């Protein structure tokens, strides 16, 4: 067929129309070729489109399906209900309450001609809050958008105002055409049934910051923007357990953002309840006693503005109570704290109430450090049964060292040196140890013993921002000198002309000190060791460190990592995760020595420096062992310590109190601690014991079927 046709085509030229003039016409062969080329061109182009389509729909199909899924689905996160925090008896410390919250739909606002400004203004007027605040809260967070801004998904309802009156919420819901995109819903917020009780231990929640949001990947995946993160206290430490797992709904949405249906739904898993070892009653007693002591000291004209007290269970290292003044009501965190309140919380004028002085405050321990020096000296060879001289002053290392108030007790034993808190005995012990170990590099019996007692390092308590305290020694001194040499050498040269104007003698002293520090500040001198022996100078401890050291003395030598968390209970009560006590170490002290120290401490409230404070305390019922401490800080009033444990014959609690600038340990801290014991055991007038059995419960609270928490049933 084909050759035949071709011949016909080839012959076309000869068979031109008879009447056609001899005008040139393209030869049919070439025209045919051109047509063939055009056909081929069109087919090739269409074929390449087909190939392109194949590429998109077969090898790349998955990629486009992912993109499609991303554009026509939206994830709506449903925050889980945060677990409650209860005390050892199952009593609530932090619970949740629902609160009517006015929320805005981001897209609905954006669809308005004025980006929802008019609607927001109307809402602001109705709920009586500043318009600017509402407007800021619906902004999406970005690199240049500062707080407040919305960090969640724009598909999530954005809270505009919390704790709205039901009447107002109803108005908004009923007049939807006037308030497009605005809605009112129930949202859970933290509630503090005991107000400021244990505020610093419990911590608080705050909206996540942009940095946290970017750093914590596991949060990002399930963050709704509504929920907040624990920022301090146990709320921060146990945040991931309390938080639970948020649920999600996958919505199918149209290009206009209209929700077309729910594709899948995962329910949220409520967070676990945290059982703490805190006892609400003991905590109350502790806080009341601390507040009373601070008020009393202040009424005596002392410049007291803060204080701390800690109650530990010596058998487990658990925290039974922990108080710090000044404190604050954590309710301020609800509903978005404003900048003014926040700045005030952080300010020094307000006494920095966010800081827990129990674990962040560092003070020289004073005489409460003496048992440590004693243990180190005995370990270093001093005789436990020997006699020691306690003169009113003693000459060592080229100067005279005074006893407290200059009094002397003659020749005494070590027990009495604790009971009457004789400094000169410890000056001598400290000096002797310094002299003995002078030539031996790295040997420092006091430093080693102090670290064994848990000083100089964080205790490892399950609370954030803990201070480590400081045990000065040769190494520390050298490092300190290296860090400050430049400054002290400058001051040695320049002197103190400002001070000289008022007190030339003091200025000369300071200049001499600077010159000494510049020249030989790296030397661990006998003076340093002598000061350290009575817990003065550069020694610093936190009340919590001191409490666990005394707990270790009481329990026979076990140093625990203190714990506030006792257990985690799942919301349905099915799962119980106990938080076991952790042993940090054992005191390297012989039993005989420890028993000796215990006996000495037992006498302090009976016949020693705390006997005034414990005058009519029923020692027959519960014998208290303890040690006063008076820390001296250059340029400030003496600070008052009392470190103790009880009952002395079968120790259960270690109680430590610290009131800065409140005078001697016997005058303020010891009566404070006495009050705590009275509260615990019910010795005050008509007082019910805070702990009826005299010990923390051994069993755990449990979750009832209705979700409430039942007390432990071992009573």
């Amino acid at each position, binding site marked *: 067929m084909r050759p*035949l046709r071709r011949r*016909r085509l080839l*012959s*076309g030229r000869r*068979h*031109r*129309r*008879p*009447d*056609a*003039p001899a*005008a*040139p*016409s*393209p030869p049919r062969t070439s*025209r*045919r070729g*051109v*047509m*063939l080329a*055009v*056909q081929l061109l*069109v*087919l090739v*182009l*269409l*074929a390449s*489109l*087909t190939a*392109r*389509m*194949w590429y*998109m*729909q*077969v090898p*790349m*199909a998955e*990629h*486009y*399906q992912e*993109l*499609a899924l991303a*554009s*026509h689905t939206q994830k709506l996160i449903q925050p889980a209900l945060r677990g409650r925090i209860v005390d050892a008896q199952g009593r609530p410390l932090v619970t949740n309450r629902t609160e009517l919250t006015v929320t805005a739909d981001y897209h609905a606002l954006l669809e308005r001609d004025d980006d929802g400004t008019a609607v927001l203004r109307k809402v602001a007027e109705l709920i009586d809050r500043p318009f600017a605040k509402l407007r800021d809260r619906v902004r999406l967070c970005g690199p240049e958008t500062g707080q407040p801004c919305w960090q969640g998904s724009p598909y999530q309802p954005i809270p505009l105002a919390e704790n709205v009156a039901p009447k107002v919420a109803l108005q908004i819901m009923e007049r939807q055409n006037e308030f497009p995109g605005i809605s009112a819903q129930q949202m859970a917020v933290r509630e503090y049934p005991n107000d400021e009780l244990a505020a610093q231990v419990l911590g608080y929640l705050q909206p996540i910051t942009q940095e946290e949001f970017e750093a914590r990947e596991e949060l990002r995946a399930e963050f709704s923007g509504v929920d907040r993160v624990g920022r301090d206290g146990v709320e921060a430490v146990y945040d991931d357990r309390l938080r639970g797992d948020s649920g999600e709904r996958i919505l*199918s*949405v*149209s*290009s*206009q953002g209209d929700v*077309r249906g729910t594709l899948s739904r995962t329910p949220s898993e409520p967070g676990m309840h945290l059982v703490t070892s805190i006892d609400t009653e003991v905590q109350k007693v502790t806080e009341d006693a601390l507040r009373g002591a601070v008020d009393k000291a202040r009424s005596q004209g002392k410049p007291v503005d803060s204080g701390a007290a800690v109650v530990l269970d010596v058998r487990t290292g658990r925290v039974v109570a922990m108080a710090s003044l000044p404190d604050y009501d954590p309710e301020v965190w609800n509903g978005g704290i404003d900048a003014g309140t926040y700045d005030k919380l952080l300010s020094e004028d307000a006494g920095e109430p966010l800081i827990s002085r129990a674990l962040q405050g560092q003070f020289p321990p004073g005489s409460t450090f003496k048992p440590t020096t004693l243990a180190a000296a005995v370990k270093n060879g001093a005789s436990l049964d020997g006699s020691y001289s306690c003169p009113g002053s003693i000459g060592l290392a080229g100067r005279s060292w005074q006893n407290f108030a200059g009094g002397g007790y003659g020749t005494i034993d070590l027990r009495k040196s604790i009971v009457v808190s004789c400094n000169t005995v410890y000056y001598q012990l400290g000096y002797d140890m310094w002299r003995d170990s002078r030539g031996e590099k790295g040997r420092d019996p006091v430093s080693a013993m102090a670290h064994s007692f848990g000083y100089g390092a964080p205790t490892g308590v399950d609370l954030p921002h803990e201070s480590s305290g400081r045990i000065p020694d040769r190494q520390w001194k050298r490092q300190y000198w290296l860090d400050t040499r430049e400054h002290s050498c400058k001051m040695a040269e320049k002197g103190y002309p400002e001070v000289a104007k008022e007190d030339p003698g003091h200025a000369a002293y300071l200049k001499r000190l600077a010159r000494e520090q510049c020249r030989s500040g790296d030397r661990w001198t006998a003076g340093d060791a002598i000061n350290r022996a009575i817990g003065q100078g550069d020694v610093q401890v936190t009340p919590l460190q001191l409490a666990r050291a005394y707990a270790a003395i009481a329990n026979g030598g076990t140093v625990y990592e203190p714990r506030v968390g006792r257990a985690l209970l799942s919301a349905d009560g099915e799962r119980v995760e106990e938080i076991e006590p952790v042993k940090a170490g054992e005191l390297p002290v012989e039993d005989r020595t420890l028993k000796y120290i215990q006996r000495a401490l037992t006498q302090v409230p009976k016949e020693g420096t705390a006997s005034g404070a414990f005058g009519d305390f029923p020692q027959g019922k519960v014998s208290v062992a303890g040690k006063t401490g008076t820390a001296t800080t250059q340029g400030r009033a003496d600070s008052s310590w009392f470190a103790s444990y009880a009952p002395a014959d079968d120790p259960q609690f270690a109680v430590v109190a610290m009131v800065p600038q409140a005078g001697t340990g016997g005058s303020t801290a010891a009566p404070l601690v006495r009050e705590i014991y009275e509260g615990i055991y019910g010795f005050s007038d008509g007082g019910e014991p805070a702990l009826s059995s005299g010990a923390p419960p051994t069993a755990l609270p449990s979750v009832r079927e209705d979700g409430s928490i039942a007390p432990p049933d071992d009573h």
Partner: protein
Amino acid sequence: MTTVPTPHTEPPGLADRAGRMIASSAPRRLDWPMLVAVAALSAIGCLLVWSATYDPADPDGALGFVRRQALHLAVGAVVLLVVAAVDFRVSRAYAPVVYLAAVLGLALVLTPLGETINGSRSWLVVAGLQMQPGEVAKLGLVLAVAMLLGEPRDGEFAPTTRDVLFSLAVLAVPLGLILAQPDLGTAMVLTATYLGMLALSGAPVRWVAGLIGCGVLAAFSVWWFGLLEEYQLQRFTTFVNPGADPRGAGYNANQSMIAVGSGGLNGTGLLEGEHTRGRFVPEQHTDFIFTVAGEELGFVGGAVIIGLLAFVLWRILRTAGRSEGPYARLVCVGAAAWLSFQSLINIGMTLGVAPITGIPLPFVSYGGTAAVANLAVLGLVLNVHAREHGVH
């Protein structure tokens, strides 16, 4: 099978002409394979229009679209049969009428009779009927240019410089009116159709090369001197990089590619495409109808559509290659240039390889004027096919 010169040596009488008309419309002379392919494309088009406009809340709405499209196709079929029946040498006499009617329509669009839809003043509303004179202009241009370059003077087959200049003027008038709307897509189709016809007209090579060069240069300078509307410029620039601004001008390109790509080999099934259901691709029943096929019918469905279009274009070009007369050949070439350009650009833009312009997919997209115009030019091709193929 011997070649016979074309028969009308002298002007035929009226009876003769009527008799020939009837004889030539004999069904066996129609290009049935091509008609079947076009019918298949139209049927697929109706299904896709149904899916693209289907709303579960209002199922009748989509049926309304399908019914209207079926009506468009029915009108188009009648026009096709009439055009196929009347000898193209007779209908050639009406070419200037069609052309002038189109120009008049385009001019009227710019008067208050015109209506603006989607930013272009492309619509004429007459007695409640919407129509796009731009589609008629494509038909008018094919007819007018075929007449001018095909057989400029009796017996003269190759166009001279004067003919080319005259044909350029014939292009320029509707082109100017269309750019005033502005409807860049239609303007591109007109230009491409004209250049295709000129290239195969036998006109002097310098003209062919020069004008194609000018076309490229014009496209470039239009872009360079910012003669385009902002949104048109954006469409062209985002064509280069559609991911740059997914919510802006590149949005359409991205969404149509997502719709096609997510269809996979076999598609989601009609009415099952999540992307189509969510209305992510705009103008999905008209310019972006191919994305419905891509998502819901998959590669298989898309390939069938491309295959059918390729078959139709091949048949048209085959007829062009076999036609004896230059006018008939140029009519077929014009039809092929027009339909192939629209098919390539339309499908190409949904696949992200061509700029986004308002060009419908021949026989498939929803639209009355386009359906009638496409089927009318196909009638001409059928006519040529019947006459050049089996007439003794």
